[in-house]
C-alpha cells in the first residue's frame, strides 16, 4: 500500500498555525519570539491570554495520489485544519503550498481560479443547494467554470452514473436519503475532475451500514481516479480502512504521522495507543511489518507459504500448529524474511496490558 506512491508532495504544510482571537497573527509572532520559537510554550502563552489555538505548528506533506487521513477527536482542530488547507479560513501563520504554489499568499481572484479548476470538497452535512435539482447541484462547479449548458449536463450525468445515482437526476436534495445525498456531494466534488480532493468527515452523519457501503464506494472510486485526497475523520476504523497515511491530531498538534500499520504497531505515546486499542490489529497489520531479516537463517522445517502482504490474522491461521520460525516470501517469489509464529501472536497482544 504505502510502497508504490510517487514521492512528490501535492500539498505541503509547514508550521501552519490557526489562532482565533483579536490580533492573532501579531500575538502569535510575539509569543513565538518570546519563547525562542518553542511552539508548545508559545501556544500555552496564547491560551493563557484567552486566545484559541486550533491548529498548532502543523507540518506534513501529502504525496500525490495518496489518501491522507487526518484523524482526531472533536475539538482536536481537524475541521479547522482542512478549512485552513482549502483556505475557507485564512491561516494565521505558516506556509501551505499546493503544487508548489503558496496558497496563503494567493489573492482572491487566484483563489477563485484555484477552486474552480483544482479543488473539490465533500462536506459532513453534504452542503447540497436545496433549491437545485441533483443535476444542477452537480453541474454548479462547472457553471462557475463557465462551461456551456450542454457540456455541463453531459459531465454531470457522467459523474452521477459514476456514484450510482443514475435515475435520480431530477430529484431535489430533500427527496433523497442521507446516503444518496452524500453521493450527490461526492459527484459534485468530482465534477470538475479536481487534482485535490478534500473530504471533511464525509460519512460521519450516516448510518453504520450506509457508511460502510460508501467507504467501499470511495475505495473503488479512488482506485480508478487516484486523486490526492485529504480525508478528515474521527473514526479510527474508517481511518485504518481507507488511509494510505494517517496524521493523528490532538489539541491542534500532530502527534504521529504514519501508515495505518505504523500507527497500530508502534504508537508514539499512550494517547495514540489508547486510540488504537480496540482496533483488531490482526486485520490491519501485515506480516512484512513484523518479520525479521537475520544474517543467518534459523532452521526452518516448515513453510506455510506466508506472503509479505498477508494480514497477521491470515498468517496466524496458516501456521496454527507450527512452533518453529517460518520463511516469508515477497511478491516476486524471493524470500523476504523470517517470522516466528510466536511473534505473530505476540504482535496482536503487544499493546494489551
Amino acid at each position, binding site marked *: 500500500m504505502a510502497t508504490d506512491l510517487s514521492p512528490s508532495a501535492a500539498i505541503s504544510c509547514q508550521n501552519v498555525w490557526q489562532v482565533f482571537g483579536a490580533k492573532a497573527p501579531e500575538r502569535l509572532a510575539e509569543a513565538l519570539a518570546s519563547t525562542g520559537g518553542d511552539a508548545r510554550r508559545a501556544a500555552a502563552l496564547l491560551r493563557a491570554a484567552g486566545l484559541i489555538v486550533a491548529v498548532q505548528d502543523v507540518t506534513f506533506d501529502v504525496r500525490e495520489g495518496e489518501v491522507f487521513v487526518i484523524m482526531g477527536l472533536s475539538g482536536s482542530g481537524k475541521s479547522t485544519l482542512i*478549512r485552513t488547507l*482549502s483556505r*475557507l479560513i485564512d491561516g494565521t501563520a505558516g506556509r501551505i503550498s499546493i503544487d508548489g504554489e503558496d496558497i496563503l499568499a494567493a489573492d482572491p481572484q487566484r483563489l*477563485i*481560479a*484555484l*477552486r*474552480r*479548476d483544482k*479543488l*473539490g*470538497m465533500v*462536506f*459532513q*452535512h*453534504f*452542503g*447540497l*443547494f*436545496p*433549491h437545485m435539482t441533483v443535476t444542477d447541484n452537480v453541474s*454548479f*462547479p462547472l457553471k*462557475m*467554470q463557465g462551461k456551456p449548458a450542454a457540456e455541463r449536463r453531459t459531465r454531470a450525468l457522467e459523474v452521477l452514473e459514476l456514484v450510482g445515482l443514475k435515475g435520480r437526476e431530477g430529484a431535489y436534495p430533500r427527496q433523497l436519503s442521507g446516503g444518496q445525498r452524500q453521493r450527490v*456531494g461526492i459527484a*459534485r*466534488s468530482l465534477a470538475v475532475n479536481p487534482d485535490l480532493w*478534500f473530504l471533511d468527515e464525509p460519512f460521519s452523519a450516516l448510518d453504520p451500514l450506509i457508511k460502510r457501503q460508501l467507504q467501499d464506494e470511495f475505495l473503488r472510486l479512488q482506485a480508478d481516479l487516484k486523486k490526492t485526497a485529504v480525508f478528515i475523520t474521527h473514526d479510527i476504523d474508517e481511518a485504518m480502512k481507507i488511509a494510505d497515511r494517517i496524521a493523528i491530531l490532538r489539541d491542534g498538534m500532530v502527534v504521529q504521522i504514519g501508515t495505518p500499520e505504523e500507527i497500530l504497531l508502534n504508537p508514539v505515546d499512550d494517547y495514540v495507543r489508547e486510540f488504537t486499542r480496540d482496533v483488531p490489529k490482526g486485520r490491519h497489520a501485515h506480516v512484512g511489518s513484523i518479520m525479521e531479516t537475520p544474517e543467518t537463517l534459523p532452521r526452518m522445517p516448515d513453510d506455510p507459504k506466508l506472503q509479505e502482504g498477508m494480514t497477521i490474522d491470515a498468517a496466524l491461521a496458516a501456521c496454527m500448529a507450527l512452533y518453529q520460525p517460518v520463511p516469508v516470501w515477497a511478491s516476486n517469489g524471493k524470500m523476504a524474511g523470517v517470522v516466528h509464529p510466536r511473534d505473530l501472536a505476540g504482535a496482536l497482544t503487544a499493546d494489551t496490558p
Partner: protein
Amino acid sequence: MLRTLPPARLAAVLTLACGAICLMLAPVAPWVTKWPAGWTLPATEWIGAIVTAGLEAVKPAARLMADLLDYPMGWATWALTALPYPATIAATVALGLYLGGWRMASGGLAGLGFVLASGYWQPGMNTLALVVVSVPLALFAGAAIGIAAYERPRLRRPVQTCLDVMQTVPTFAYLTPLLVLFGFGPVVGLIASAIYAAPPMARNVLLGLERVEPDIREAAVMAGTTRRQQLFLIELPAAKRQIMVGVNQTIMAALSMVIIAAVIGGFDDIGWAVLLTMRKADFGNSLISGMVIVIFAVVIDRLSAALADDRPGTRLYGAFIILLAGFALSFLVGGLLPPAGDLALFNGLAAATDARLGAFTAAYGPALDALRNGAMFYGLLPLRIGLDQAVLPMTWGVQWTPLASAALFAAAGLAAAGLLWRGRFGWAVALLLATGIVETGIVDLPWPFVLFAAGAMGWVGGGPRLAGFALAMLMPILLMGLWAPAMLSLYLSGAAVIACALVGGALGLASAASPALWRVVLPVCDFLQTIPMFVFLIPVLMFFQIGEFSAFLAICAYAVVPMIRYTRHGLVSTPDEMIEAAVASGATGWQTFREVRAPYAVPQILLGLNQTILYAFSMLVIAALIGTTDLGQQIYLALGQGDVGLGLAAGAAMVMLALLADRLLQAFAAAQKAALGL
C-alpha cells in the same frame, strides 16, 4: 446584616425602603410626587426647532420624491379602479387557485364578493393601490438593509437596534414629521407604511441568510463562486422560505399602516371610511367597512403566506382559464354590469345592525354600564390614582381616610411578616410593593421610587449596565416634562398587561392541557393577529362608547395573543425525555406539571409577556383615538397640530418605556434560561 443578603434580596429591600421613605416624605415635600415644572427642560421645543430645521433642509428633495411617487401611485390607483371588478376578482381567484388550490380560490371569491356587495369597492381599491406601491418600496429597502447587515457583520448590532426602534416607534409619531416633509396627501401614508413595513423584511432576510447551513456556504465557495455569485445564486435562494415569511409580514404591516395613516385624511380609502362612520356613531357601516379591511387582510395574508410553501403551482391551466373568463366577461358585458360603487347590498343590514345595537344597548345598557363602572371603580381607577383617591362615596360608597391607609399598611405588614416567617421572601416583598402601589396609584407614584425600582430591577437582571440603561431611559422622560402622561401610559398598558397575563396565561394553560380547546383558540389567535389594529376599536366602541375602559379592552384584545401562544408553546414543548424521566420517577400529572413543565416553560412565558407588553404599547397610540389621556394622546394631538417637537418627544418617551420593559424582561428570561442550562 444587609451585607449578607443576596443581591436580589438586597435590591428588593432597598426598593421597599425607598418607597417607604418617599411615602413619608410626600406630605412635606411635594416635589417627590410631582416633578417640579421648573426642573423641566424645554426639550420638546428644542427637538421641534432642530428637527424642523433639518426637515426644512431636506424638504425640497422630499417634495421631489413625493412628486415622483405620485406617478406610480396614480398608475396603481388608475389600474385598480379602472379595471372592471370582474377582472380584478378573476385575477384574485386565479392567483388563489394557482398558489393554494380551490379552497383559497373560493375564499378569495367570497371575500372580494363581499367587498363588492358592501359598496366599499372603490375605497378598498384606493387602499390596495397604496399597498401596491408601498410594499415594493418596503421590500426593496428591507432586503437591502438585511443584505447589508449580513455582508458587514459589524453593522448587525446597530441595524438590529435600529429595527427595534423603527418597530417600537408609535405609528402616529412619525406621521407628524412626514407631514411636514411631504405635505398633506396619500404619499405620507405611503412613506409611513414603507418605513413601518421594511423592518420585518430586513429581519427575515438577515435571519434567513444567517441560517443558511455553513456547509452550503462553504460548498459554494469551494465551487469557486465570487462573493456576489455566492450571495445571489446560493445563499438568497437557499434562504427563500424565511425571506417569503418576511414578504408576508411586510405586506401585512404595510396594509395595517396604510389603514392607520387614514387619520391624516384627504384620501378616500377604507381606513377613512371606518374612521368617518365611527365618528358618526354609524356602527352598522363601520362594522361593514371594518369587515372589508379584515377580508383584505385575511385574503392577502393567505395568498402571501402560500408563497412561503414551496409546493410548485400545478393548476396553471385552471388559473389561466379563470383569468381569461374574468377579462372576457368584463370587456364583453362590462357595460351591463352595475358600477361597483352603486352596489350597497348591505345598507339594509347596516341599518338593521344599528337598530339591533340600539335595542341591545337600550335593553342591556344598565348591565354594560355596571360592567364598565365596576371595572373602572374597583380595578382601573385604584390602579391609576390609588385607593386614597379612588375610594369615594360616589364610587365605593365610603370615603377613604388616612386611618384606612394605616389599617391597609398594617394588614399588609402583618401578612408580609407571616410570609417571611414561612420563608417566602419574594412574595412578602411583592405584597408590600403591590399594597403601596395600589394605595398610591401608578400615576401618583413618587418618581424617585420609580427610578430606583427600575434601576434595581435592571441591576438584578443584567448588572450595572442594565441599571444604567434603565435610568438613561427614564431620566429624559422626566426632564422633558412628559412624566405624567408617561405614567398614564404605564398604568394603562400595565393594567392591560396584567389582564392579558391572567386571561392569556389561563387560556394558554388550558390550551396546553386540552388539544380540543387549542383547535378553537388557534384560529381565533390567528384571526386576531391578522386583522389590522384599527379594527379592534369598532366592537369596543359599539358597546362601551368612548373612554378609558374601551381603550383598555381594545388593548387587551390586541395584546393577549402572544401571551396565549407563548404560554401554551412553553408548556407543550417540554422535551419528551424530561416528561418520561418525571413519570418514571413516579410523578403524578400535577407533579410533572409543577416540577418539570412549568419551570421549563418560564423563559418562553416571559418572552410571551414581553411581546404582550410591546403589543400593548403599540396599541396605546391607536387607542388614543377613543379617549385616553396618555402619551398616545399627546402624539395624536401633536399630529393634529403639526407639532413636530411634541410628537417626536412623546413618541421617543413611548419608545423608551417600551425598550426598557423589553430589555428588563429579556434579561430575566435570559437569566432563567441560563439557570435551566438551555
